[in-house]
């Protein structure tokens, strides 16, 4: 953790802390929050940190707890440690480059080398492979990612695509079809895809990043859509994230942001197969 923090300080990021208990989580189709007595436990610090972006913070990071209801498995806990960071005026791929160097540096400062072995597989964190979602689905699942129903998209992701990612090096899986954009903006170069990437090592998803969506109208539309899906799946409805909306109206600058699962990074570092081994 110190190694991660050092890397941010070196690159002129300030450390921030935003509330863990919040009045209104972002409505997401597949993430459910844990209820607190007066509000909810954050599923990520995203909305609060974007308010800080609108307030003029240029580069910031935060490391702390996040909670996701009913997520429990070898790579999931309801409470986990999230590392989230934003940089104004950085392109999403610039952030990918930064992130891969951060992970390699963190390993190097802990183990003395950016080469590690995870469960019998050699992993050189200084090597990075970039692959688009379209390419990955064609190559590993023999499928067209633009044609798939969402359920099938996720199933192939888990069963076919993810196991092939991060073999021997870090993989940045980028340019998700716009249906899976979440809070990322549509790419200007290819309107079928959004500026979103995820980073993998040894088949494990370590983090997710966006070229941030800053258009208030588009953001409201996406949340409305997510709420609609949540209603259909009889998930809870949340209060409107008022502060976040007003930050959008004030203007969130062009920026990119990323969230890393710190526990999974530690799993890689320790060779742990189960997240239980790296949490108290």
């Amino acid at each position, binding site marked *: 953790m110190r190694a991660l923090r050092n890397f941010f300080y070196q690159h002129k990021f300030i450390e921030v802390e935003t509330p863990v208990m919040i009045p209104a989580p972002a409505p*997401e189709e*597949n*993430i459910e929050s844990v209820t607190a007595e007066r509000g909810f436990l954050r599923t990520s610090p995203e909305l609060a940190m974007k308010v800080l972006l609108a307030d003029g913070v240029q580069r910031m990071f935060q490391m702390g707890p996040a909670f996701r209801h*009913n*997520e*429990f*498995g*070898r*790579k*999931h806990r309801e409470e986990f440690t999230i590392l989230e960071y934003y940089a104004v005026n950085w392109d999403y791929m610039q952030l990918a480059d930064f992130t891969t160097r951060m992970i390699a540096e963190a390993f190097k400062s802990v183990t003395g080398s950016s080469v590690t072995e995870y469960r019998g597989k050699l992993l050189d964190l200084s090597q990075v492979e970039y692959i688009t979602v379209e390419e990955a689905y064609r190559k590993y699942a023999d499928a067209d990612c633009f044609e798939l129903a*969402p*359920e099938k*998209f*996720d*199933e192939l*992701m*888990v*069963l076919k695509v*993810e196991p092939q990612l991060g073999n021997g090096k870090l993989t940045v899986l980028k340019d998700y079809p716009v249906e*899976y954009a*979440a809070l990322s903006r549509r790419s200007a170069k290819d309107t079928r895809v959004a500026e979103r990437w*995820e980073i993998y090592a040894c088949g494990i*998803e370590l983090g*997710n990043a966006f070229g941030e969506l800053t258009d208030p109208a588009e953001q409201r539309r996406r949340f409305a859509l997510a709420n609609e899906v949540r209603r259909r*799946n009889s998930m809870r409805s949340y209060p409107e994230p008022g502060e976040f909306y007003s930050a959008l109206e004030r203007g969130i600058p062009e920026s990119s942001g990323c969230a890393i*699962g710190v526990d999974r990074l530690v799993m890689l570092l320790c060779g742990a197969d189960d997240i239980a081994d790296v949490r108290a």
Partner: protein
Amino acid sequence: MYSASDLKKGLKIEIDGSPWVITEFDFCKPGKGTALYRCRMKNMITGVGMEHTYRPTDKIEQPNIEEREMYYSYFDGHHYVFSDPNTYEEMSVSAETLGNQIYFLLEDSLCNFVLYNGEPIEITLPTFIEKEIVETEPGVRGDTATNVTKPAKIDNGYEIQVPLFINQGDIVKIDTRTGTYAERVSKK
């Protein structure tokens, strides 16, 4: 009905009218995507294994499974009869269901029953029972090595492998899970 989020290792579920127990379980979920619940399971009657992946909206049948303790009472000539310690209700079990365990039934021993739709599918006897050796080659005095064995019979004719130092008339402890010799209790 169970929902997919109830799935975990050891949970018993019903698929197409058979009971299954989940032997391995993993929760997989792309950060922003839908969860998949990957299960490896074993059929509780046939022992056959299979894999199945569930989605969050899947509903899974709950089997009518009950566990209870019963005393072994007697053999009625066709069936082995057990009785409930509280209600004295009797239940007859066929030799087929019990398998090799018929040799280790002792009167009044407390057995654990797993019932599926009221029918016993698994019966667990006390782990160790004591039996007298009624037939074996004479023991070799002084030889206490246990890695060399010889056949021996207990009162109901069941044959086990015992160490050379065991004599006819000795009482031995038998592990009912494996049907093998565990230790000598007393010498004749």
